[in-house]
Protein backbone atom coordinates (compact mmCIF):
# COMPACT_ATOMS: atom_id res chain seq x y z
CA UNK A 1 0.00 0.00 0.00
CA UNK A 2 2.75 2.34 1.01
CA UNK A 3 4.69 1.54 -2.13
CA UNK A 4 1.71 2.33 -4.34
CA UNK A 5 1.01 5.67 -2.67
CA UNK A 6 4.67 6.46 -2.82
CA UNK A 7 4.87 5.89 -6.56
CA UNK A 8 1.44 7.30 -7.28
CA UNK A 9 2.47 10.81 -6.31
CA UNK A 10 5.85 10.57 -8.00
CA UNK A 11 4.06 9.47 -11.17
CA UNK A 12 1.65 12.38 -10.81
CA UNK A 13 4.59 14.75 -10.46
CA UNK A 14 6.19 13.19 -13.55
CA UNK A 15 2.89 13.58 -15.40
CA UNK A 16 2.86 17.29 -14.57
CA UNK A 17 6.43 17.61 -15.88
CA UNK A 18 5.36 15.87 -19.12
CA UNK A 19 2.13 17.86 -19.48
CA UNK A 20 3.61 21.33 -19.05
CA UNK A 21 5.31 21.38 -22.51
CA UNK A 22 1.99 20.39 -24.10
CA UNK A 23 0.05 23.12 -22.32
CA UNK A 24 2.45 26.02 -22.24
CA UNK A 25 3.88 28.05 -25.11
CA UNK A 26 7.04 29.10 -23.25
CA UNK A 27 9.82 26.88 -22.01
CA UNK A 28 10.92 29.50 -19.51
CA UNK A 29 7.45 29.64 -17.96
CA UNK A 30 7.31 25.85 -17.70
CA UNK A 31 10.78 25.84 -16.11
CA UNK A 32 9.68 28.50 -13.65
CA UNK A 33 6.76 26.32 -12.57
CA UNK A 34 9.03 23.39 -11.76
CA UNK A 35 11.68 25.55 -10.09
CA UNK A 36 9.12 27.04 -7.72
CA UNK A 37 7.50 23.64 -7.26
CA UNK A 38 10.87 22.47 -5.91
CA UNK A 39 11.04 25.48 -3.58
CA UNK A 40 7.49 24.81 -2.39
CA UNK A 41 8.37 21.15 -1.76
CA UNK A 42 11.13 22.30 0.56
CA UNK A 43 8.71 24.62 2.34
CA UNK A 44 6.07 21.90 2.64
CA UNK A 45 8.54 19.55 4.29
CA UNK A 46 8.84 22.14 7.06
CA UNK A 47 5.24 23.36 7.28
CA UNK A 48 3.29 20.26 6.30
CA UNK A 49 5.43 17.55 7.83
CA UNK A 50 7.16 19.23 10.75
CA UNK A 51 4.72 22.02 11.61
CA UNK A 52 7.30 24.78 11.10
CA UNK A 53 6.07 27.85 9.21
CA UNK A 54 9.17 29.42 7.74
CA UNK A 55 9.28 32.89 6.26
CA UNK A 56 12.95 32.32 5.52
CA UNK A 57 12.75 30.09 2.46
CA UNK A 58 13.85 33.01 0.28
CA UNK A 59 17.19 32.95 2.12
CA UNK A 60 17.94 29.44 0.88
CA UNK A 61 16.59 30.23 -2.58
CA UNK A 62 18.78 33.34 -2.79
CA UNK A 63 21.84 31.59 -1.40
CA UNK A 64 21.35 28.84 -3.99
CA UNK A 65 21.14 31.47 -6.75
CA UNK A 66 24.27 33.27 -5.59
CA UNK A 67 26.23 30.06 -5.05
CA UNK A 68 25.39 28.75 -8.52
CA UNK A 69 26.12 32.19 -9.98
CA UNK A 70 29.51 32.52 -8.31
CA UNK A 71 30.76 29.03 -9.12
CA UNK A 72 29.55 29.21 -12.71
CA UNK A 73 31.06 32.64 -13.27
CA UNK A 74 34.29 32.38 -11.29
CA UNK A 75 35.14 28.69 -11.27
CA UNK A 76 33.46 27.82 -14.61
CA UNK A 77 32.06 24.66 -13.05
CA UNK A 78 29.82 22.25 -14.95
CA UNK A 79 26.06 22.14 -14.43
CA UNK A 80 25.77 19.33 -11.92
CA UNK A 81 28.61 20.35 -9.59
CA UNK A 82 27.29 23.93 -9.63
CA UNK A 83 23.82 22.72 -8.64
CA UNK A 84 25.24 20.40 -6.01
CA UNK A 85 27.05 23.37 -4.48
CA UNK A 86 23.87 25.47 -4.64
CA UNK A 87 22.05 22.75 -2.71
CA UNK A 88 24.95 22.49 -0.26
CA UNK A 89 24.96 26.26 0.23
CA UNK A 90 21.23 26.21 0.92
CA UNK A 91 21.67 23.33 3.36
CA UNK A 92 24.49 25.01 5.30
CA UNK A 93 22.65 28.31 5.66
CA UNK A 94 19.51 26.39 6.64
CA UNK A 95 21.54 24.65 9.33
CA UNK A 96 22.59 28.05 10.70
CA UNK A 97 19.16 29.70 10.48
CA UNK A 98 17.47 26.56 11.79
CA UNK A 99 19.88 26.24 14.68
CA UNK A 100 18.85 29.69 15.90
CA UNK A 101 15.17 29.58 15.01
CA UNK A 102 14.12 26.19 16.37
CA UNK A 103 15.02 27.31 19.87
CA UNK A 104 11.67 29.06 19.71
CA UNK A 105 8.21 27.70 19.10
CA UNK A 106 5.01 28.90 17.50
CA UNK A 107 4.70 32.50 16.49
CA UNK A 108 8.06 33.43 17.96
CA UNK A 109 9.65 30.98 15.56
CA UNK A 110 7.78 32.48 12.61
CA UNK A 111 8.86 36.00 13.56
CA UNK A 112 12.46 34.87 13.83
CA UNK A 113 12.50 33.32 10.38
CA UNK A 114 11.17 36.58 8.97
CA UNK A 115 13.79 38.57 10.85
CA UNK A 116 16.46 36.24 9.45
CA UNK A 117 15.07 36.75 5.96
CA UNK A 118 15.60 40.49 6.43
CA UNK A 119 19.06 39.89 7.89
CA UNK A 120 20.22 37.86 4.89
CA UNK A 121 18.72 40.38 2.52
CA UNK A 122 20.82 43.15 4.05
CA UNK A 123 23.81 40.81 4.22
CA UNK A 124 23.52 40.14 0.48
CA UNK A 125 23.10 43.86 -0.07
CA UNK A 126 26.29 44.72 1.82
CA UNK A 127 28.41 41.89 0.38
CA UNK A 128 28.62 43.60 -3.01
CA UNK A 129 31.88 41.85 -3.96
CA UNK A 130 30.20 38.45 -3.84
CA UNK A 131 26.58 39.17 -4.70
CA UNK A 132 26.82 42.26 -6.89
CA UNK A 133 24.63 44.18 -4.44
CA UNK A 134 21.71 45.93 -6.10
CA UNK A 135 22.66 44.70 -9.57
CA UNK A 136 22.96 41.05 -8.65
CA UNK A 137 25.16 38.66 -10.60
CA UNK A 138 24.82 39.05 -14.34
CA UNK A 139 25.56 36.85 -17.38
CA UNK A 140 25.53 33.56 -15.54
CA UNK A 141 26.36 30.84 -18.06
CA UNK A 142 24.25 27.72 -18.54
CA UNK A 143 26.51 24.75 -19.23
CA UNK A 144 25.09 21.56 -20.79
CA UNK A 145 24.18 18.56 -18.70
CA UNK A 146 27.32 16.46 -18.69
CA UNK A 147 28.66 13.46 -16.82
CA UNK A 148 32.37 12.64 -16.78
CA UNK A 149 32.97 15.09 -19.60
CA UNK A 150 30.29 13.46 -21.72
CA UNK A 151 27.56 15.87 -22.86
CA UNK A 152 24.20 14.21 -22.25
CA UNK A 153 21.88 17.12 -23.01
CA UNK A 154 22.50 20.62 -24.32
CA UNK A 155 20.70 23.46 -22.54
CA UNK A 156 20.85 26.16 -25.16
CA UNK A 157 17.14 26.47 -25.86
CA UNK A 158 14.64 27.02 -23.08
CA UNK A 159 12.94 23.67 -23.75
CA UNK A 160 16.26 21.83 -23.60
CA UNK A 161 16.92 23.44 -20.25
CA UNK A 162 13.37 22.55 -19.22
CA UNK A 163 14.16 18.88 -19.89
CA UNK A 164 17.12 19.01 -17.53
CA UNK A 165 15.05 20.77 -14.85
CA UNK A 166 12.18 18.31 -15.30
CA UNK A 167 14.48 15.30 -14.82
CA UNK A 168 15.95 16.82 -11.67
CA UNK A 169 12.49 17.78 -10.45
CA UNK A 170 11.10 14.25 -10.76
CA UNK A 171 14.22 12.84 -9.16
CA UNK A 172 14.03 15.21 -6.18
CA UNK A 173 10.29 14.65 -5.82
CA UNK A 174 10.85 10.90 -5.66
CA UNK A 175 13.64 11.32 -3.11
CA UNK A 176 11.53 13.63 -0.96
CA UNK A 177 8.57 11.27 -1.15
CA UNK A 178 10.92 8.54 0.08
CA UNK A 179 12.00 10.82 2.92
CA UNK A 180 8.44 11.56 4.07
CA UNK A 181 7.50 7.89 3.78
CA UNK A 182 10.55 6.85 5.77
CA UNK A 183 10.90 6.56 9.52
CA UNK A 184 12.31 10.07 9.57
CA UNK A 185 9.17 11.37 7.81
CA UNK A 186 6.88 9.61 10.27
CA UNK A 187 8.82 10.95 13.19
CA UNK A 188 8.59 14.47 11.78
CA UNK A 189 4.80 14.01 11.63
CA UNK A 190 4.88 12.94 15.26
CA UNK A 191 6.73 16.16 16.07
CA UNK A 192 4.12 18.15 14.17
CA UNK A 193 1.23 16.46 15.91
CA UNK A 194 2.52 16.58 19.45
CA UNK A 195 5.96 17.90 20.16
CA UNK A 196 5.86 17.23 23.89
CA UNK A 197 4.89 13.62 23.36
CA UNK A 198 7.49 13.07 20.66
CA UNK A 199 10.05 14.48 23.04
CA UNK A 200 8.81 12.30 25.89
CA UNK A 201 9.13 9.23 23.67
CA UNK A 202 12.82 9.97 23.52
CA UNK A 203 13.10 11.63 20.15
CA UNK A 204 15.55 14.47 19.88
CA UNK A 205 13.01 16.98 18.60
CA UNK A 206 15.60 19.68 17.96
CA UNK A 207 17.74 17.37 15.89
CA UNK A 208 14.71 16.24 13.88
CA UNK A 209 13.62 19.81 13.19
CA UNK A 210 17.15 20.69 12.22
CA UNK A 211 17.26 17.73 9.83
CA UNK A 212 14.02 18.93 8.23
CA UNK A 213 15.53 22.41 7.93
CA UNK A 214 18.68 21.13 6.26
CA UNK A 215 16.79 18.99 3.73
CA UNK A 216 14.44 21.88 3.03
CA UNK A 217 17.37 24.26 2.62
CA UNK A 218 19.11 21.90 0.21
CA UNK A 219 16.03 21.50 -2.02
CA UNK A 220 15.29 25.23 -1.96
CA UNK A 221 18.95 26.03 -2.66
CA UNK A 222 18.83 23.71 -5.66
CA UNK A 223 15.72 25.53 -6.88
CA UNK A 224 17.53 28.85 -6.47
CA UNK A 225 20.50 27.56 -8.48
CA UNK A 226 18.20 26.34 -11.26
CA UNK A 227 16.46 29.72 -11.26
CA UNK A 228 19.75 31.59 -11.63
CA UNK A 229 20.66 29.47 -14.64
CA UNK A 230 17.19 29.87 -16.09
CA UNK A 231 17.31 33.67 -16.09
CA UNK A 232 21.08 34.07 -16.40
CA UNK A 233 21.07 36.37 -13.37
CA UNK A 234 21.09 36.01 -9.60
CA UNK A 235 19.26 39.18 -8.55
CA UNK A 236 18.99 40.65 -5.06
CA UNK A 237 15.23 40.09 -5.30
CA UNK A 238 15.80 36.31 -5.10
CA UNK A 239 16.75 36.69 -1.45
CA UNK A 240 14.11 39.29 -0.63
CA UNK A 241 11.26 38.86 1.82
CA UNK A 242 8.86 38.69 -1.10
CA UNK A 243 10.51 35.51 -2.37
CA UNK A 244 10.08 33.92 1.05
CA UNK A 245 6.49 35.04 1.09
CA UNK A 246 5.81 33.77 -2.43
CA UNK A 247 7.24 30.32 -1.63
CA UNK A 248 5.18 30.08 1.53
CA UNK A 249 2.04 31.25 -0.26
CA UNK A 250 2.49 28.63 -3.01
CA UNK A 251 2.86 25.95 -0.37
CA UNK A 252 -0.22 27.00 1.55
CA UNK A 253 -2.42 27.52 -1.51
CA UNK A 254 -1.45 24.07 -2.74
CA UNK A 255 -2.15 22.49 0.62
CA UNK A 256 0.19 21.11 3.25
CA UNK A 257 0.96 17.59 4.32
CA UNK A 258 1.11 16.14 0.83
CA UNK A 259 4.09 16.76 -1.42
CA UNK A 260 2.10 16.76 -4.64
CA UNK A 261 -0.03 19.59 -3.26
CA UNK A 262 3.04 21.84 -3.49
CA UNK A 263 3.34 21.10 -7.21
CA UNK A 264 -0.28 22.20 -7.59
CA UNK A 265 0.32 25.33 -5.50
CA UNK A 266 3.43 26.39 -7.41
CA UNK A 267 1.76 25.74 -10.78
CA UNK A 268 -1.23 27.79 -9.73
CA UNK A 269 0.86 30.67 -8.39
CA UNK A 270 3.26 30.89 -11.32
CA UNK A 271 0.70 30.35 -14.09
CA UNK A 272 -2.15 32.42 -12.68
CA UNK A 273 0.31 35.10 -11.58
CA UNK A 274 1.84 35.17 -15.03
CA UNK A 275 -1.56 35.48 -16.65
CA UNK A 276 -2.97 38.04 -14.22
CA UNK A 277 0.09 40.26 -14.16
CA UNK A 278 -0.36 40.95 -17.88
CA UNK A 279 -3.94 42.02 -17.18
CA UNK A 280 -3.40 44.00 -14.01
CA UNK A 281 -0.03 44.94 -12.51
CA UNK A 282 -1.58 45.00 -9.02
CA UNK A 283 -2.62 41.36 -9.18
CA UNK A 284 -0.92 40.69 -5.84
CA UNK A 285 -3.98 42.30 -4.27
CA UNK A 286 -6.06 39.41 -5.59
CA UNK A 287 -3.46 37.06 -4.18
CA UNK A 288 -3.87 38.74 -0.79
CA UNK A 289 -7.62 38.28 -0.98
CA UNK A 290 -7.09 34.65 -1.99
CA UNK A 291 -4.89 34.14 1.07
CA UNK A 292 -7.61 35.58 3.26
CA UNK A 293 -10.15 33.26 1.62
CA UNK A 294 -7.88 30.22 1.97
CA UNK A 295 -7.32 30.89 5.66
CA UNK A 296 -11.05 31.34 6.25
CA UNK A 297 -12.64 28.73 4.00
CA UNK A 298 -10.15 26.46 2.26
CA UNK A 299 -7.59 25.41 4.79
CA UNK A 300 -6.56 22.26 2.96
CA UNK A 301 -5.65 24.27 -0.13
CA UNK A 302 -6.10 23.27 -3.74
CA UNK A 303 -5.14 19.69 -2.99
CA UNK A 304 -7.87 19.40 -0.38
CA UNK A 305 -10.33 20.92 -2.82
CA UNK A 306 -9.25 18.46 -5.53
CA UNK A 307 -9.69 15.52 -3.15
CA UNK A 308 -13.18 16.75 -2.28
CA UNK A 309 -14.11 17.01 -5.94
CA UNK A 310 -12.69 13.57 -6.73
CA UNK A 311 -14.70 12.10 -3.88
CA UNK A 312 -17.86 13.87 -4.98
CA UNK A 313 -17.40 12.55 -8.49
CA UNK A 314 -16.87 9.05 -7.16
CA UNK A 315 -20.13 9.47 -5.33
CA UNK A 316 -19.13 8.45 -1.82
CA UNK A 317 -20.32 11.63 -0.19
CA UNK A 318 -19.99 10.20 3.29
CA UNK A 319 -16.24 10.09 2.95
CA UNK A 320 -15.94 13.54 1.40
CA UNK A 321 -15.77 15.21 4.78
CA UNK A 322 -12.63 13.32 5.66
CA UNK A 323 -11.31 13.38 2.13
CA UNK A 324 -9.05 16.31 2.72
CA UNK A 325 -7.40 14.72 5.71
CA UNK A 326 -7.37 11.26 4.18
CA UNK A 327 -3.87 11.41 2.78
CA UNK A 328 -2.36 12.83 5.89
CA UNK A 329 -3.86 10.16 8.11
CA UNK A 330 -3.08 7.44 5.63
CA UNK A 331 0.55 8.37 5.72
CA UNK A 332 0.47 8.49 9.46
CA UNK A 333 -0.94 5.02 9.91
CA UNK A 334 0.55 3.08 7.04
Amino acid at each position, binding site marked *: MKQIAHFRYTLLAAAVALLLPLLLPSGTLATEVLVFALAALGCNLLLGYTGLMSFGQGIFFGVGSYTAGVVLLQLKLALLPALALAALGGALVALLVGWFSIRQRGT*YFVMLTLAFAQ*MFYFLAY*TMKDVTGGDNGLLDIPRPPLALFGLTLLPTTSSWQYYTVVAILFVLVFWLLQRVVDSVLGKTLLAVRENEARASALGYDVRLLKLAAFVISGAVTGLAGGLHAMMTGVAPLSNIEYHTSEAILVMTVIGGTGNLFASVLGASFYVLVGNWLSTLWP*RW*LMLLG*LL*LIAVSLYMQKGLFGLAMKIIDAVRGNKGASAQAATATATKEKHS
Partner: protein
Amino acid sequence: MNIYLLQIANGVGIGMLYFLLAVGLSIVFGLLRFVNFSHGAFFLLGAYLCFQVTDLGLGFWWSLLIAPLVVGLFAWIVERFVLRHVYALPHHFHILFTVGMALVIQEAVISTWGPLGNNVAPPDLLQGVVMWGGFVYPKYRLFVIGLTAVMALLLWWVLEGTRLGSIVRAGSESTEMVSLLGLNINRIFSLVFALGAATAGLAGALAAPIRGADPFMGVEALGIAFVVVVIGGLGSFWGALIGGILVGIVQSVMSTVWSEGAHLMIYVAMAAVMLLRPNGLLGRPGAA
Protein backbone atom coordinates in the same frame (compact mmCIF):
# COMPACT_ATOMS: atom_id res chain seq x y z
CA MET B 1 33.38 61.98 20.51
CA ASN B 2 30.69 64.51 19.67
CA ILE B 3 29.65 62.61 16.55
CA TYR B 4 28.96 59.47 18.57
CA LEU B 5 27.04 61.42 21.18
CA LEU B 6 24.96 62.91 18.40
CA GLN B 7 24.38 59.49 16.86
CA ILE B 8 23.31 58.06 20.20
CA ALA B 9 20.87 60.95 20.62
CA ASN B 10 19.69 60.36 17.07
CA GLY B 11 19.32 56.68 17.86
CA VAL B 12 17.12 57.46 20.85
CA GLY B 13 14.88 59.45 18.49
CA ILE B 14 14.60 56.61 15.99
CA GLY B 15 14.33 54.14 18.83
CA MET B 16 11.31 55.88 20.34
CA LEU B 17 9.69 55.67 16.94
CA TYR B 18 10.51 51.96 16.81
CA PHE B 19 8.99 51.58 20.26
CA LEU B 20 5.77 53.16 19.03
CA LEU B 21 5.86 50.91 16.00
CA ALA B 22 6.38 47.73 18.00
CA VAL B 23 4.38 48.30 21.18
CA GLY B 24 1.04 47.72 19.46
CA LEU B 25 2.27 44.43 18.06
CA SER B 26 3.36 43.42 21.52
CA ILE B 27 0.14 44.41 23.31
CA VAL B 28 -2.05 42.75 20.70
CA PHE B 29 -0.01 39.60 21.08
CA GLY B 30 -0.25 39.77 24.85
CA LEU B 31 -4.03 39.85 24.83
CA LEU B 32 -4.98 37.98 21.68
CA ARG B 33 -2.02 35.54 21.42
CA PHE B 34 -1.96 36.67 17.85
CA VAL B 35 0.96 37.95 15.82
CA ASN B 36 -0.25 40.52 13.38
CA PHE B 37 1.73 40.32 10.14
CA SER B 38 -0.18 43.30 8.77
CA HIS B 39 1.28 45.53 11.47
CA GLY B 40 3.87 46.85 9.02
CA ALA B 41 1.07 47.63 6.56
CA PHE B 42 -0.64 49.75 9.23
CA PHE B 43 2.62 51.69 9.59
CA LEU B 44 2.73 52.08 5.81
CA LEU B 45 -0.85 53.31 5.75
CA GLY B 46 -0.05 55.85 8.47
CA ALA B 47 2.87 57.24 6.48
CA TYR B 48 0.78 57.60 3.32
CA LEU B 49 -2.08 59.21 5.20
CA CYS B 50 0.43 61.74 6.52
CA PHE B 51 1.61 62.37 2.97
CA GLN B 52 -1.96 62.74 1.73
CA VAL B 53 -3.01 65.10 4.52
CA THR B 54 0.00 67.39 4.05
CA ASP B 55 -0.37 67.15 0.27
CA LEU B 56 -3.95 68.36 0.55
CA GLY B 57 -2.62 71.36 2.45
CA LEU B 58 -4.31 70.45 5.72
CA GLY B 59 -1.01 70.63 7.51
CA PHE B 60 1.16 68.07 9.23
CA TRP B 61 -0.50 68.42 12.63
CA TRP B 62 -3.79 67.14 11.31
CA SER B 63 -2.10 64.03 9.98
CA LEU B 64 -1.02 63.11 13.52
CA LEU B 65 -4.69 62.94 14.38
CA ILE B 66 -6.13 61.60 11.14
CA ALA B 67 -3.58 58.85 10.44
CA PRO B 68 -4.02 56.94 13.72
CA LEU B 69 -7.78 57.45 13.68
CA VAL B 70 -8.26 56.16 10.14
CA VAL B 71 -5.88 53.23 10.60
CA GLY B 72 -7.45 52.39 13.95
CA LEU B 73 -10.95 52.53 12.52
CA PHE B 74 -9.94 50.33 9.60
CA ALA B 75 -8.42 47.77 11.96
CA TRP B 76 -11.48 47.92 14.20
CA ILE B 77 -13.78 47.11 11.28
CA VAL B 78 -11.53 44.28 10.07
CA GLU B 79 -11.33 42.81 13.57
CA ARG B 80 -15.05 43.06 14.17
CA PHE B 81 -16.26 41.62 10.91
CA VAL B 82 -13.59 39.21 9.69
CA LEU B 83 -10.65 38.65 11.96
CA ARG B 84 -12.61 37.19 14.87
CA HIS B 85 -13.55 34.22 12.73
CA VAL B 86 -9.85 33.40 12.45
CA TYR B 87 -9.02 33.20 16.18
CA ALA B 88 -10.28 29.64 16.53
CA LEU B 89 -8.03 28.39 13.71
CA PRO B 90 -4.46 27.10 14.19
CA HIS B 91 -1.98 29.93 14.54
CA HIS B 92 -0.51 29.66 11.06
CA PHE B 93 -3.87 30.69 9.61
CA HIS B 94 -3.72 33.88 11.72
CA ILE B 95 -0.43 34.59 10.05
CA LEU B 96 -1.72 33.79 6.56
CA PHE B 97 -4.76 35.95 7.03
CA THR B 98 -2.75 38.95 8.16
CA VAL B 99 -0.11 38.37 5.45
CA GLY B 100 -2.97 38.45 2.94
CA MET B 101 -4.27 41.64 4.49
CA ALA B 102 -0.81 43.22 4.34
CA LEU B 103 -0.59 42.37 0.63
CA VAL B 104 -3.99 43.90 -0.04
CA ILE B 105 -3.06 47.10 1.82
CA GLN B 106 0.32 47.38 0.08
CA GLU B 107 -1.18 46.92 -3.38
CA ALA B 108 -4.02 49.32 -2.58
CA VAL B 109 -1.41 51.91 -1.54
CA ILE B 110 0.47 51.43 -4.82
CA SER B 111 -2.79 51.67 -6.80
CA THR B 112 -3.69 54.89 -5.04
CA TRP B 113 -0.38 56.70 -4.71
CA GLY B 114 1.83 55.03 -7.31
CA PRO B 115 4.91 52.83 -6.92
CA LEU B 116 7.40 55.64 -6.29
CA GLY B 117 8.27 57.11 -2.92
CA ASN B 118 7.04 60.52 -1.77
CA ASN B 119 8.68 63.05 0.49
CA VAL B 120 6.92 64.75 3.36
CA ALA B 121 8.27 68.01 4.72
CA PRO B 122 8.23 68.56 8.47
CA PRO B 123 6.07 71.52 9.51
CA ASP B 124 7.72 74.96 9.44
CA LEU B 125 7.77 75.13 13.19
CA LEU B 126 9.94 72.01 13.40
CA GLN B 127 12.36 72.72 10.58
CA GLY B 128 15.97 73.37 11.35
CA VAL B 129 18.03 72.42 14.36
CA VAL B 130 18.44 73.35 17.99
CA MET B 131 21.86 74.11 19.40
CA TRP B 132 23.16 73.70 22.93
CA GLY B 133 26.76 74.80 22.94
CA GLY B 134 28.41 72.41 20.53
CA PHE B 135 25.47 70.04 20.47
CA VAL B 136 23.23 70.18 17.36
CA TYR B 137 19.97 68.31 17.03
CA PRO B 138 17.20 68.44 14.42
CA LYS B 139 14.06 69.99 15.87
CA TYR B 140 11.79 67.47 14.28
CA ARG B 141 13.54 64.56 15.94
CA LEU B 142 13.36 66.31 19.27
CA PHE B 143 9.65 66.63 18.72
CA VAL B 144 9.40 62.91 17.86
CA ILE B 145 11.17 62.01 21.09
CA GLY B 146 8.87 64.28 23.08
CA LEU B 147 5.66 63.06 21.48
CA THR B 148 6.55 59.37 21.63
CA ALA B 149 7.58 59.79 25.28
CA VAL B 150 4.17 61.28 25.99
CA MET B 151 2.52 58.44 24.09
CA ALA B 152 4.57 55.90 26.03
CA LEU B 153 3.47 57.44 29.33
CA LEU B 154 -0.11 57.55 28.13
CA LEU B 155 -0.05 53.91 27.05
CA TRP B 156 1.59 52.89 30.28
CA TRP B 157 -1.07 54.75 32.21
CA VAL B 158 -3.85 53.13 30.16
CA LEU B 159 -2.35 49.68 30.78
CA GLU B 160 -1.50 50.17 34.46
CA GLY B 161 -3.92 52.77 35.70
CA THR B 162 -7.25 52.28 33.99
CA ARG B 163 -9.97 49.68 34.16
CA LEU B 164 -9.44 48.86 30.49
CA GLY B 165 -5.78 48.27 31.23
CA SER B 166 -6.50 45.92 34.09
CA ILE B 167 -8.93 43.98 31.89
CA VAL B 168 -6.30 43.77 29.16
CA ARG B 169 -3.69 42.54 31.60
CA ALA B 170 -6.12 40.03 33.09
CA GLY B 171 -7.06 38.97 29.57
CA SER B 172 -3.40 38.31 28.81
CA GLU B 173 -3.39 35.78 31.64
CA SER B 174 -6.72 34.16 30.87
CA THR B 175 -9.36 35.37 28.46
CA GLU B 176 -11.81 32.73 29.71
CA MET B 177 -11.63 34.12 33.21
CA VAL B 178 -12.33 37.63 31.96
CA SER B 179 -15.35 36.37 30.01
CA LEU B 180 -16.59 34.49 33.06
CA LEU B 181 -16.51 37.72 35.02
CA GLY B 182 -19.18 38.99 32.65
CA LEU B 183 -17.02 41.33 30.60
CA ASN B 184 -17.50 41.47 26.87
CA ILE B 185 -14.08 40.22 25.82
CA ASN B 186 -14.93 40.53 22.13
CA ARG B 187 -15.35 44.27 22.41
CA ILE B 188 -12.08 44.53 24.26
CA PHE B 189 -10.35 42.48 21.55
CA SER B 190 -11.62 44.88 18.88
CA LEU B 191 -10.59 47.89 20.92
CA VAL B 192 -7.07 46.60 21.63
CA PHE B 193 -6.54 45.56 18.02
CA ALA B 194 -7.64 49.03 16.87
CA LEU B 195 -5.38 50.65 19.49
CA GLY B 196 -2.41 48.58 18.34
CA ALA B 197 -3.06 49.54 14.72
CA ALA B 198 -3.51 53.21 15.62
CA THR B 199 -0.11 53.35 17.35
CA ALA B 200 1.48 51.82 14.25
CA GLY B 201 -0.38 54.37 12.12
CA LEU B 202 0.89 57.21 14.29
CA ALA B 203 4.43 55.83 14.08
CA GLY B 204 4.09 55.78 10.28
CA ALA B 205 2.88 59.38 10.19
CA LEU B 206 5.75 60.47 12.45
CA ALA B 207 8.26 58.57 10.32
CA ALA B 208 7.11 60.10 7.03
CA PRO B 209 9.00 63.43 7.38
CA ILE B 210 12.15 61.49 8.36
CA ARG B 211 12.26 58.77 5.72
CA GLY B 212 9.47 59.67 3.26
CA ALA B 213 6.64 57.35 2.27
CA ASP B 214 7.29 54.45 -0.10
CA PRO B 215 5.23 51.32 -0.76
CA PHE B 216 7.78 48.89 0.61
CA MET B 217 8.34 50.52 3.99
CA GLY B 218 5.70 48.20 5.43
CA VAL B 219 7.85 45.10 5.06
CA GLU B 220 10.88 46.87 6.50
CA ALA B 221 8.79 48.13 9.42
CA LEU B 222 7.42 44.65 10.09
CA GLY B 223 10.95 43.25 10.20
CA ILE B 224 12.08 45.95 12.60
CA ALA B 225 9.00 45.57 14.81
CA PHE B 226 9.73 41.85 15.06
CA VAL B 227 13.34 42.49 15.98
CA VAL B 228 12.25 44.97 18.66
CA VAL B 229 9.86 42.52 20.31
CA VAL B 230 12.24 39.57 19.92
CA ILE B 231 14.91 41.64 21.70
CA GLY B 232 12.57 43.04 24.32
CA GLY B 233 10.35 40.02 24.84
CA LEU B 234 6.99 39.44 23.18
CA GLY B 235 4.07 40.92 25.10
CA SER B 236 6.20 43.18 27.29
CA PHE B 237 5.61 46.95 27.29
CA TRP B 238 9.00 47.82 28.80
CA GLY B 239 10.63 45.25 26.55
CA ALA B 240 9.31 47.12 23.52
CA LEU B 241 10.71 50.38 24.92
CA ILE B 242 14.16 48.97 25.70
CA GLY B 243 14.22 46.96 22.45
CA GLY B 244 13.18 49.98 20.40
CA ILE B 245 15.81 52.29 21.85
CA LEU B 246 18.51 49.63 21.60
CA VAL B 247 17.71 48.98 17.94
CA GLY B 248 17.57 52.73 17.23
CA ILE B 249 20.98 53.32 18.81
CA VAL B 250 22.58 50.34 17.05
CA GLN B 251 21.24 51.52 13.71
CA SER B 252 22.23 55.13 14.27
CA VAL B 253 25.75 54.50 15.57
CA MET B 254 26.42 51.88 12.90
CA SER B 255 25.37 54.31 10.17
CA THR B 256 28.42 56.39 11.13
CA VAL B 257 30.78 53.46 11.45
CA TRP B 258 29.56 51.42 8.48
CA SER B 259 26.59 53.00 6.79
CA GLU B 260 25.81 50.14 4.42
CA GLY B 261 25.71 47.65 7.22
CA ALA B 262 23.53 49.71 9.57
CA HIS B 263 20.42 47.67 8.84
CA LEU B 264 22.34 44.43 8.91
CA MET B 265 23.64 45.17 12.40
CA ILE B 266 20.09 45.48 13.76
CA TYR B 267 19.56 41.83 12.92
CA VAL B 268 22.99 40.86 14.22
CA ALA B 269 22.06 42.53 17.51
CA MET B 270 18.89 40.45 17.55
CA ALA B 271 20.83 37.23 17.02
CA ALA B 272 23.22 38.22 19.82
CA VAL B 273 20.41 38.90 22.28
CA MET B 274 18.77 35.61 21.33
CA LEU B 275 21.92 33.69 22.11
CA LEU B 276 22.13 35.24 25.57
CA ARG B 277 18.43 35.45 26.40
CA PRO B 278 16.24 33.35 24.12
CA ASN B 279 13.02 34.89 25.46
CA GLY B 280 14.16 38.45 25.03
CA LEU B 281 15.51 40.84 27.64
CA LEU B 282 12.23 41.13 29.56
CA GLY B 283 10.29 38.21 28.15
CA ARG B 284 8.87 35.41 30.23
CA PRO B 285 9.73 31.87 29.18
CA GLY B 286 6.89 30.22 27.31
CA ALA B 287 5.19 33.52 26.50
CA ALA B 288 5.12 32.61 22.82
